[in-house]
Every structure is written in structure tokens, then in C-alpha cells.
């Protein structure tokens, strides 16, 4: 279990080091409103999160 978590942490850091942003899709209870929560550190990931989505950093177009 600890090795699995270590692998997840390493992969999370690798993605951020490669220039990605990470966010967790969330839903506000009761309202049905969905939004994303940006996570900058592995410890920021909510424990109930099912997935983390990595996407490229925004830059001015």
C-alpha cells in the first residue's frame, strides 16, 4: 500500500514538473453544480476524490 502511494506521489510530481496543472472535479452537494478544485500538492487531493485530471497550463494566446 505504501509503495502504491509512493508511486502515485511520484507520478503526480512528474506531471506537475512537466508543466501540467492538476484539478479534481467536484460537485456541490444539493445544488448539482459542478466545478473543479485545483491541487498543487498531493496532500491537497481530497480523500474522497475519485480521480485527478492533469491538463496543460494556461498561457496567453
Amino acid at each position, binding site marked *: 500500500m505504501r509503495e502504491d502511494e509512493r508511486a502515485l506521489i511520484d507520478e503526480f510530481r512528474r506531471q506537475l514538473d512537466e508543466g501540467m496543472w492538476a484539478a479534481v472535479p467536484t460537485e456541490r452537494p444539493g445544488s448539482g453544480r459542478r466545478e473543479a478544485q485545483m491541487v498543487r500538492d498531493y496532500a491537497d487531493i481530497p480523500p474522497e476524490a475519485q480521480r485527478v485530471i492533469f491538463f496543460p497550463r494556461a498561457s496567453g*494566446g
Partner: protein
Amino acid sequence: MLALLITGLMAIVLAAFLLGSPTLARFRGRRKRRVENAPHAFDPGRERRAEQRARQLLRSCVNDVEWAMYRDLGFIRVDGQALPDSPLDEDAPPPYAYLIYPHKPLVAYVPESGRLLSEYCVEFPDLAGGGRTRLPASDDVLAKWMALTSDEARVIGRANMHLVGRQHDPGHVRRDIWRLSEWERLGAGGIGARAA
């Protein structure tokens, strides 16, 4: 004279025969290296599969109304965050909102009046490579949706702001806002009342 001409032609043919193979081989070698070094060729099937995967991911992240909006109208509206000096009231209409288009700038406008505010040029380059320089359309929409709903100030801070009209046709955007209001009035693509 004729003998000289025939001799000359034979010499040319012989030279071509002798030089032909290695020359051709060198040419082929260069061509092969060019092909090997060339970026991945455009593959419509791969692009279509990538877009299908992106649509599935987008659908799993946004709510039913937003998904139906994108499916029916080709863009998604995201409400702006409450202004710093305004009271937080979730029932109040948002002071402004964004329209998210694939591979086009975000458009900020006032939902109550339909007044266009500005367009924000922002890009999410495809870092995965594979011959693509930009994300599939639905991945681009998802990236904008995630960035706006999670950290609006950061993504807007990185964008280049212009008056609407630099990349978007203002008439087209106004027509989209009208289409959106009609779409909501008619039941939001069968979803029912708009989710908060």
C-alpha cells in the same frame, strides 16, 4: 556527325547507369531520413478517437445541463465568481459569465443584459506531442472549464484580454447568447430547469 551524336547519347546512358544506383540510393536514404524525422502525419482516425475520448471525459466532469449545452450549442457558459465587494448570494444572478468555445478565446458578458465585456485569449498547448500541437476540441473546453471553475483569477491573469471582435465575431457571439436564452427557455435540451 551522326556517329558523334550516337556516341554522346551512349555515354550519357552509360553514365546514368553507373551513377544511377548509388545516386538513387543516396536520394532514397535522404528521403527515408526525412520521413523518419518528420512529425507524425495527420491521422483522421486517431484524431476522431481522441476527440471521442475527450467528449466522454468532458461529459463525466460537467453537469447534465452544461453537457447538453455543449452538445446542442457548441459552447458552455460558466458563471463568473462573485465580485469581491458584492455579498455572496447563490440565488442572485451572476454579475458576469463566460462562454467557453473550443480553440477560441473565452468571452465574458453580462447575462442580465447580454452586454459583451471582453474576450480572453488563452491557450492550453498539447504537451503530450504525438504530432498534435493543440488539444482535441473537447479537451480544450474541459481545460478551460477546469481552470475557470477552480482558479478563475489565475487563468484570467494569464490570458490576453481584448475587446470582443479580435478573434470572435461580436454578431456571432450575440447570436449565440440569444440561442442560449432560447435553448434554456425551451427546456435546456430536455434537461429541465438549469442547475445552479
